[in-house]
């Protein structure tokens, strides 16, 4: 639970901070120096709460690593580098021929992502570094320390630049222009003095119950603003360019770096500097699509088909990546594994392999090291494809189990315990839950029913097959939609089993809804306001069904429930391959949009999910029984503990 909730609690302010930090060169070095140790300690030891007391986060200037300022490459040049890397890719890779794109197509795409090492200028580099600092802070925060406490601590202990930053938006704009002069004004001694003052303030704050008096940070901020007053303004544009020109550090990122910059599961991709940062660390070099829909700037949209060969070429460089995880990641990337349960099970099984092959490095703690390893794997998987909510829940479970391992256990015992825990999660929470759902749902199917389903939900398929085995007489309407056409696979399986089916596409839903008696739908997740987050089009089907007064039954395992809330399908979603829309598979006559894909006026939007309002759902069938959508928060609350403990 924490691993998801805490970062979210702090992400929003962080996003704003980064914008400011991009131009604060001098501070950045100090920030960098200060925060580096935190990340080293905190991220390595995130789960065991006791080891990181808030005071443990306080910075010791002794541990300042040398500032990494030197290497930098410029924007256009890396483009060429990208081409070079992708050209290297061996053609023998098995997935590469699944895509329509030649390997070389990377060259045409903006090369921000590449790791080319064209050293050009050193000036803009410093601007990138505060970002790292910030990120490491985020890593620190994502440990299980309660978010609020951590926030206050970090506010207080921060060097002036950071303090300003955390203190709020209102000062941000001035600072953007001014922060550059800050370093010139404050000598090292002065900074030390400020730090001392802050530490004192922090002690006071702790005495006050861990809460900073609002005045403290505000006054700090105001002083620093005053200090920063006489400065030359630099334009916003320059900053953007600078942040875009952020580059690789010498020698490439270590595994630790990668982990600490792991893309947040709900990272906002409209924030350029964060994107750049995440990219620098990324293993999978996703090419950003150029022609994007304005409304969805905050979501990642990648050119599809270019990453696999690139990734393949890098296989041997990624020594810390476990082959099982690597394989699953590639399967996500290529779309070979899709569907919430399948993805979740594949990931958990990969983690089982990881645990099996794991041995604690010397002088390291199993709990901490394994958690950090899992985190780095998760970030790799996120790069391949954004996590589904169910996967987030499963990861939370695994980390929780690792954290709760008794210290007394030997390594082999611990590994065995973890493996059996994961096994149990798969069996109980996914496979067992499905069986319970089937048992419940079958009671709702009567002879003569006409059941409608959309897409290819596994739970619903099991229900239909089971009902058929019970010799119930019913007919199934399979509704499908482009571009995935998953319904065709379901249709084929149902027909093979002897179930009479009618197949149609989602546009015709109003036409066939007359004859339907019940609608069975699957879900990717059910959010605690009752909103169902599911394959795009589910909302349409549910809406039409409720307009025709047809009951909508939603089948969803309880491990997919989440305490998050969402109102629309725009704030959080996943974007699929836009080219899947312009090209109609199997219909060569539909080629109106050929050659227009690069037109600046034309965008393709391939949404993967949508949010169905709870009023369209009559009933949710879950492993805890059949409940109305209003009861979802109850299940989330009551069973979350059990869920994590299993």
């Amino acid at each position: 639970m924490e691993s998801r909730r805490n970062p979210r609690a702090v992400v929003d302010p962080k996003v704003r901070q980064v914008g400011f930090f991009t131009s604060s060169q001098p501070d950045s070095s100090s920030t960098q120096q200060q925060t580096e140790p935190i990340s080293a300690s905190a991220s390595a030891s995130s789960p065991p709460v006791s080891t990181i007391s808030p005071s443990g986060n306080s910075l010791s200037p002794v541990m300042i690593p040398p500032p990494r300022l030197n290497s930098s490459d410029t924007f256009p040049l890396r483009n060429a580098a990208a081409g070079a890397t992708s050209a290297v890719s061996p053609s023998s890779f098995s997935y590469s021929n699944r895509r329509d794109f030649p390997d070389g197509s990377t060259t045409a795409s903006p090369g921000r992502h590449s790791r080319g090492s064209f050293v050009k200028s050193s000036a803009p580099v410093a601007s990138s570094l505060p970002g790292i600092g910030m990120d490491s802070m985020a890593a620190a925060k994502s440990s299980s320390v309660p978010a609020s406490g951590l926030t206050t601590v970090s506010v207080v202990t921060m060097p002036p630049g950071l303090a300003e930053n955390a203190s709020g938006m209102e000062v941000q704009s001035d600072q953007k222009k001014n922060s550059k002069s800050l370093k010139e004004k404050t000598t090292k001694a002065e900074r030390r003095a400020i730090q001392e003052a802050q530490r004192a303030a922090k002690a006071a704050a702790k005495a006050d119950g861990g809460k900073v008096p609002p005045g403290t940070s505000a006054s700090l901020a105001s002083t620093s603003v005053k200090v920063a007053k006489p400065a030359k303004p630099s334009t916003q544009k320059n900053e953007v360019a600078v942040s875009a020109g952020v580059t690789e550090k010498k020698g490439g990122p270590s595994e630790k770096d990668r982990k600490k910059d792991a893309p947040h599961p709900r990272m906002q991709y409209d924030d350029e500097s964060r994107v750049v940062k995440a990219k620098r660390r990324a293993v999978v070099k996703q090419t950003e699509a150029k022609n994007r829909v304005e409304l969805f700037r905050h979501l990642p949209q990648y050119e599809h088909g270019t990453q696999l060969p690139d990734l393949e070429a890098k296989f041997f460089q990624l020594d810390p990546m476990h082959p099982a995880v690597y394989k699953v990641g590639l399967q996500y990337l290529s779309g070979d594994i899709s569907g919430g349960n399948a993805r979740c099970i594949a990931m958990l099984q990969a983690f089982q392999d990881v645990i099996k092959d794991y041995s604690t490095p010397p002088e390291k703690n199993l709990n901490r090291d394994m958690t950090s390893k899992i985190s780095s794997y998760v970030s790799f998987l996120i790069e391949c494809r954004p996590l589904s909510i169910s996967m987030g829940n499963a990861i939370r479970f695994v980390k929780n189990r690792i954290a709760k391992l008794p210290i007394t256990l030997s390594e082999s015992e611990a590994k065995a315990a973890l493996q059996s825990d994961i096994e149990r999660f798969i069996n109980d929470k996914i496979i067992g839950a499905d069986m319970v759902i089937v048992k419940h749902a079958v009671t709702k199917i009567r002879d003569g029913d006409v059941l409608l389903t959309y897409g290819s939900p596994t739970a619903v398929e099991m229900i239909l097959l089971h009902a058929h085995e019970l010799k119930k007489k019913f007919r199934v309407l399979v509704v499908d939609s482009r571009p995935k056409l998953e319904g065709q696979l379901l249709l084929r399986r149902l027909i093979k089993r002897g179930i009479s089916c009618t197949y149609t596409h989602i546009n015709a839903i109003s036409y066939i809804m007359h004859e339907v008696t019940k609608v069975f739908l699957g879900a990717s997740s059910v959010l605690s306001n009752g909103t169902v987050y599911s394959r795009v089009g589910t909302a349409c089907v549910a809406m039409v069904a409720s307009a025709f007064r047809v009951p909508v039954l939603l089948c969803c395992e309880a491990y997919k429930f989440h305490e998050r809330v969402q109102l629309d399908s725009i704030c959080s979603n996943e974007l699929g391959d836009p080219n899947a829309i312009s090209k109609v598979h199997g219909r060569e006559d539909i080629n109106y949009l050929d050659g227009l894909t690069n037109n600046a006026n034309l965008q393709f939007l391939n949404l993967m999910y949508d949010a169905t309002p709870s009023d369209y759902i009559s009933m949710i069938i879950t492993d805890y029984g059949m409940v109305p959508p209003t009861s979802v928060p109850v299940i989330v609350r009551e069973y979350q503990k059990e869920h994590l403990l299993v």
Partner: protein
Amino acid sequence: MPDVQSMVAEFVNKLRKRKIEGSQATAKCTVELLRSVISHQRVPHANQAAALIDAVKAVGQQLVAANPVELAVGNVVRRVLHIIREEDLSLTTAAMAGLDLLDASDDDDIDNCKGIGYPAMSAAVVAAAARSTLRPPSLQTLLEGTPESATVPYTSSSGADSESKTADKSSLTRKLKHDVIEGVNQLIHEISGCHEQIAEQAIEHIHQNEVILTLGSSRTVLEFLCAAKEKKRSFRVFVAEGAPRYQGHLLAKELVARGLQTTVITDSAVFAMISRVNMVIIGAHAVMANGGVIGPVGVNMAALAAKKHAVPFVVLAGSHKLCPLYPHNPEVLLNELRSPSELLDFGEFSDCLDFGAGSGSLQVVNPTFDYVPPNLVSLFITDTGGHNPSYMYRLIADYYSADDLVM
């Protein structure tokens, strides 16, 4: 007139094979065909309007039977019939200017009692009846108590064969046909010009930075959006691709060619996107008298979603799409199923089509149209302006004679 016969046969064939796409093209072809039917029709001295009407009806029935779903055909036939009646009426009234109304109504009563197939009426009564159906009833006619029977459909005929026909009537023989053809030409002009008429109103409905969702490929919508674009409005358009015909791709291509910001979305994303859309604009296939709309498949879904999010749902329809009929079960009865091959590749599923024991049957449904009930429509924009759905019946009554509703 064998050439007309063959033309009709050819057109019927085309309609049957669905060779003509789009209600505007169909309407235009129909009205041109009818014009040649009328011009080739030999009119007797006596009863020329009736002869014309019969001829047009005969052809019209064939055409409608050829493609009952293409309501534009029936609409145009009715419009032509209406034109004939109107022209005949105006000629007769001109001729009978001085006739006494009271006498006429007496005649009417007598004729009705005689039970003649086409109950004969004096032209004046017809005029009065027409006045009461087509124009707002004047206070005078209300007071005079013109016979109710005049508005009843079964008095379907012209007043041409009333006993009051006189020698001056025959002098008008050529004039009637001429006038009718003139009227039909006007109709053709109206049908081909409806886009411009509708597009002219675009600027009143589209504001700056608007996000518009559309669906299917309609020339009317295209012209409408482009007209707003030409007036320097900048807005973006979401186009649902409209599987399985992918008409949305076609529309998107046209829009992009005209420089509009276009985003193609899947049909399933309509609900997801509707919350960010300011207006849904679609082109209708036909507008029913109750204000319901028959449009490209998927429209009902979009309309429901728009209703849910209180997004205005605007329907563009040229006057030839206004159908005087009230729909009954239009989703099924006024629909048309297209080939399953658009949805499923036969090659891939041929093994599933073996309906032997042990395997289930497979049906594929691929409807062409969708019906949107009037309560989901916010506004109709026709070439005569914007109208509420509840007003459509009245607008439609202006274009058709009550006598022709059942052909």
